[in-house]
């Protein structure tokens, strides 16, 4: 099973690097980072913090866009290019195909994010004259968790939606949760019962990407998270990965193919 999943994952990684998506994103990432490093904010104290925030946000945005695009097109392109029939005629289960697509999309995106993050770290080192290492590692690892959830969401939704709709929904959810996710819970408190329970259920069912966003903590050099909390976040991400892949498989297991 591991060999079949890794074969599918390898295919996705090869596609990502041979179709040059990554290089385009990297090019724009470097250009924007270089441009941001030249901006002068006069009369603002701790200007490097703004620059760090911009740099980190760029790394997050490019990785998220790249990851959702790559993951969202996997199953539809197999159908469209009529390669799925041959693949499923081999001794591989449909969940294995989905999991392989997820693993490959995640691995390719994680590799891209690593490059972006290393560039960002070099940039941060230059601007701030040093880095809080534990926070940097936590910021990196937690965003990898977010990318895993994002990839699973895109692969799962690709069994239901077209690629364009999937990317739109995934990225909208990703950015909306990052911006408003933290305020949703307090908003539900103002709603009378039993509506509050419904909203609370919706709140719990949504993937809280903001839980993995360490930007503020990193930039302001706040205390690092405890190992226990990081482990809980890893479990939270794993749960959502399995839920999204299972939901996708539920539709995909009966989907017809064009052999």
């Amino acid at each position, binding site marked *: 099973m591991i*060999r*079949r999943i*890794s*074969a*599918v994952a*390898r*295919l996705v990684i*090869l*596609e990502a690097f*041979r*179709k040059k998506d990554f290089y385009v994103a990297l090019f724009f990432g470097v250009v924007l980072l270089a441009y941001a490093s030249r901006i002068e904010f006069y009369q603002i104290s701790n200007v490097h913090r703004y620059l760090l925030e911009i740099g980190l946000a760029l790394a997050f945005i490019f990785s998220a866009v790249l990851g959702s695009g790559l993951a969202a097109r996997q199953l539809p392109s197999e159908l469209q*290019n*009529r*390669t799925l*029939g*041959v*693949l*499923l*005629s*081999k*001794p*591989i*289960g449909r969940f294995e195909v989905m999991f392989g697509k997820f693993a490959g999309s995640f691995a390719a995106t994680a590799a891209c994010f690593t490059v972006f993050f290393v560039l960002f770290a070099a940039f941060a080192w230059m601007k701030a004259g040093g880095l809080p290492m534990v926070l940097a590692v936590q910021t990196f690892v937690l965003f990898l968790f977010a990318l895993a959830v994002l990839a699973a969401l895109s692969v799962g939704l690709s069994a239901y939606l077209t690629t364009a709709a999937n990317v739109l929904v995934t990225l909208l959810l990703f950015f909306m949760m990052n911006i408003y996710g933290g305020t949703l819970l307090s908003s539900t408190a103002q709603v009378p019962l039993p509506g509050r329970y419904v909203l609370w259920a919706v709140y719990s069912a949504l993937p809280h990407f903001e839980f993995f966003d360490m930007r503020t903590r990193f930039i302001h050099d706040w205390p690092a998270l405890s190992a226990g909390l990081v482990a809980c976040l890893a479990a939270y991400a794993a749960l959502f990965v399995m839920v999204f892949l299972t939901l996708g498989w539920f539709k995909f297991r*009966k989907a*017809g*193919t064009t*052999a």
Partner: protein
Amino acid sequence: MNYALECRALRVSFGTKTTLDGLDLKVRAGEMFGFLGPNGAGKSTTIKSLLGLIQPASGEVLVHGVSPDHPSARRRIGFLPEEAMYYRFLTPMEILRFYGDICGVERGLLTRRIEELLKLVGMWEVRNRQIKTFSKGMTQKISLAQALIHDPDTLILDEPTSGLDPIARMDLRSLLKDLRHQGKTIFFSSHELSEAELLCDTIAIIKNGKIIKTGSVESVLAGKEHNLERFFIDTIKNADGGAR
């Protein structure tokens, strides 16, 4: 009797349209079976059912006695689709390694088998070129190699000669005969009736989702002076008349 492929009262519908209407089919292990029929008769749907790619509304499909939903059944099948489509960014070596990994072929054996198959289909020289640069005929050869990568007991070939030039067709015919002599079961759908006549032990003619004639080529043509092509046209016309 040991059957490699079996369909029992198979019914497949897409919406209100019934594509296979109680289809019964039996392919003995080790025989070369030609599956013939006009366009839209249900050949591709039958093949997809045999591969477990679509779920029948009723009836049963067995591959070496096991449902094709089980990966163990599909491990014994090699499939060559009518229109060969593969990952265009891969090279022939990578394609075969990918499918070999999926089929669980032991790694050392896989490396040897890839070389052997690429030489067999005459693609060894271009083994490191991406498939997107290949012609239809070249892709069809890769398609045949991928169908054979795990040394399956049964080959399901959908229009195997489509896109091949006359020499490649002749090579394919000779390869299929060799495989048949090795004891493989070969099930192929084709419009090339002369080819079916030349190669097959048994044929079945399908029309409107039902088998209207089946048997050995000799028994089907017994007592008739004409060839399979003439027989096929007459059978289809008679079936149309019957339907009216």
